């Protein structure tokens, strides 16, 4: 059985419930959200540690904010990570399941490592961040969260090398069911995706933080300082990002025969970001634009990851566009309606958080947002009526 036949055989016989390329788009888009929060968690964790290690008044204040941000970013990283996890299993099932099973012990350990990292981040926020006590918990949290990222990196790296799976599963003809070996990795890719993107996500969020609290006059000097730190981090990290991108292209890109296009794309991205931060003279005022620029960059990286995967699989004649599918109207109906309701409610929640936070001292929510909240909550209630109707229709008529 050659690799192409093997991959075809491993595809689930049920096929996908919708056009696979559309699910691929959803995979990339949701991954962007996920990696933003994941890198933000790492960045804010590192920021809080650095601030408490070399304290000044401003750094201590920023360190406390970062310590509070870390566990919330981890929480959002987990939640947003579920969506790409769904789509990767649907259209890349042979890759995802094989890499997880080959690395079984670490795949299972991932969750315990995350629990440790998250728990320690909360411990530091709740019990240590007021005066910098329990700094060890922040350091240990950072190490565990980074290790969890390493595990996911290895899973991704194993998944795009199907030609080596059998050699890893049965070295010398003896199958190994322990799953304890880290079979594959690429340090430039890891450096690019995790620590450097963590720095850039942090840089962007620092400017955004300053922008959010810009109207509180007595905090203005601190906020200006925070925004400047954000720009400075961006300015320092983005050239390194360019270099790591180049190395990623020179190693993994070359391995899959796309070294030059990958090098051009990643270097251009890094240089564009360097230029952006260089010319960003008023980081606080332009923070929303900076966030958009960063999301566009992450989207580019998401596409690059997907291209590498596609090129790797193309070697064996395996294409997502040829993944078998049906149009499952039941799935689409439920998902479509829930999307409308979910987006409305999450938007309302985000608006409440935004308006009650720091832009206005009284923390009140505007009447228009209140009105929108009534509608969104009503939609959420109505979702249950819709769900029961679909259930009744299915039970009594769909036969």
């Amino acid at each position: 059985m050659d690799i192409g036949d093997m991959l075809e055989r491993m595809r689930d016989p049920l096929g996908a419930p919708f056009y696979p390329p559309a699910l691929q788009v959803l995979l990339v888009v949701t991954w962007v959200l996920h990696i933003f929060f994941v890198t933000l968690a790492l960045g804010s964790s590192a920021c809080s540690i650095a601030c408490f290690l070399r304290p000044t008044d401003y750094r201590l204040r920023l360190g406390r904010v970062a310590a509070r941000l870390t566990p919330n970013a981890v929480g959002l990283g987990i939640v947003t990570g579920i969506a790409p996890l769904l789509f990767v299993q649907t259209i890349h099932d042979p890759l995802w399941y094989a890499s997880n099973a080959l690395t079984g012990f670490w795949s299972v350990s991932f969750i315990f490592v995350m629990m440790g990292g998250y728990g320690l981040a909360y411990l530091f926020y709740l019990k240590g961040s007021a005066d910098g006590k329990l700094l060890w918990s922040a350091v240990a949290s950072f190490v565990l969260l980074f290790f969890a990222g390493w595990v996911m990196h290895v899973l991704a790296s194993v998944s795009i090398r199907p030609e080596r799976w059998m050699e890893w599963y049965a070295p010398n003809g003896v199958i190994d069911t322990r799953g304890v070996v880290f079979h594959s990795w690429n340090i430039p890719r890891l450096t690019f995706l995790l620590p450097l993107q963590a720095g850039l996500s942090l840089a962007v969020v620092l400017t955004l933080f300053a922008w959010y609290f810009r109207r509180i006059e007595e905090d203005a000097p601190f906020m200006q300082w925070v925004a400047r730190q954000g720009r400075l981090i961006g300015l320092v990290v983005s050239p390194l990002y360019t270099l790591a991108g180049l190395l990623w292209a020179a190693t993994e890109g070359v391995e899959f025969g796309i070294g030059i296009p990958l090098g051009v794309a990643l270097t251009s991205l890094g240089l564009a970001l360097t230029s952006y931060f260089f010319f960003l003279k008023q980081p606080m005022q332009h923070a929303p634009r900076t966030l958009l620029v960063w999301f566009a960059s992450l989207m580019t990286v998401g596409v690059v990851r997907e291209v590498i995967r596609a090129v790797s699989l193309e070697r064996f004649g395996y294409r997502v566009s040829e993944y078998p599918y049906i149009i499952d109207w039941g799935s689409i109906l439920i998902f479509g309606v829930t999307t409308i309701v979910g987006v409305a409610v999450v938007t309302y929640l985000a608006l409440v958080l935004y308006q009650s936070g720091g832009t206005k001292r009284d923390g009140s929510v505007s009447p228009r947002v209140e009105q929108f909240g009534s509608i969104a909550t009503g939609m959420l209630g109505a979702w249950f009526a819709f769900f029961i109707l679909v259930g009744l229709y299915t039970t009594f008529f769909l036969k």
Partner: protein
Amino acid sequence: MYPVWEGIFIHSAMFVAIVSAFHVLVSHLTVAAAWFNLYLERRAVYENRPELYVYLKRSALGLLVFAYVFGALAGVGIWQTTTVANPRGISTLIHNFVLYWGSEWYMFLIDVVGIIAYYYTFGRVSPRTHLRLAWILALGGTGTLTLIVGILSFKLTPGLWFTTGESLNGFFNPTFWPQLLTRFFLMFTITAAWVMLIATSLPKGYFAREQIIRTAAAIGLGGLIIALGIWFLWFYPVLPDHAKTILRSPAIPPITFTVIVGGLIATFLGLLFALAMPRRQHPIIALGAMLVLFAAIFGAERTREVIRKPDIIAGYMSSNQLVFNDIPARGIQSEEEPLNETGMLGSLPFLPRPETISVGATAGLPDHQVMMGRVLVIQQCAACHSVSNQTAITIFDQRLALRSLAQLLERRKMTTAPKIEAYLQRIGAFPYMHPFVGTPEERAAMALYLEYFVQQQYAPQPQAQVRR
């Protein structure tokens, strides 16, 4: 079809069970706690009882730190553990229900952003706005429960999906509604323990404490009684006959029922105690109640998983990860029948051809036939049984392994290859066992490996005698 991860020290299936039980405890607690908080917050707003916010804020912090994120992590943990324990089982679910899971993800997003908004806006937004957030949390949480139960119950009763191939038929299957309602009401029992944990950790002078405990205990008792009523009058009667047979079979050890029934009785008595004497409650008692509930949930969830044995998806896919029935509506044909002709080895990915299986010094097994048998036993049996020393631990001279095949065969005096081979030939006669798949030669190789495994465990000599 995929590499097998047996587990290390602990069997892969036990990793799934432990993580799942924790997730069920936390997620159920979360949903009902949202309803309980909504109830209290309505009273706080409409009866002008600001003291209730003290409890609500403490509860919200606990939910934010513990329940939502650890619950979510355990949810991801279920993905990871099921993926490595039985990839094709989870693949079937994902390919049928990915967009239902996508819908659940929206509800979950509402939950997590909602609890952040709920906690951080105490005192920062008007009471009415905050009450709306409480409504959103309660509805969002119930949405997640509703969507996941359809997928879970499909595994036991795919129902009309077999004939129509429609995901909706698989989702709204015969056990969907009773399972949903049983879980919904039982959640309030779990939440009662949570409420007691939070309320008893508030200062003694907090005067709403006893009232809150009493209310939670009453709701918990009511939930328990209604859930048991639904189980006996609706859920159990619609279980497939096969599941009822398994319930009464040795596939479920009696200790499981002892733990479940004991846990329910202890919970019932504990709630009565809280109702009658709310002043005497203590965080230690509440923690104890949580542990008892964890044990009972562990037993109940294991039972739910076992009653569809030997299938991972009842009537469609066995624990060996092979499709064994045709689904014409989806153009799916049984994968097992051709394998009985061609043999397993070399016919499926990750099952090497016999000649490529090595008998190197590293393997430590006596000969090539035993090595072949090991590969086949791992593929066909390792999903439910401990088939090697890798998945066993010894604590105080007590060897712990999940349904160890060595132990089972030795108990039945099937310790030689001919006896084991004959046993394998009729293994499908047990209601909880799937027939052997492959050629007679492969069955003989499996018997040789199992003989080796039994003798490794129970005979003093390090290697079994090779018979063929």
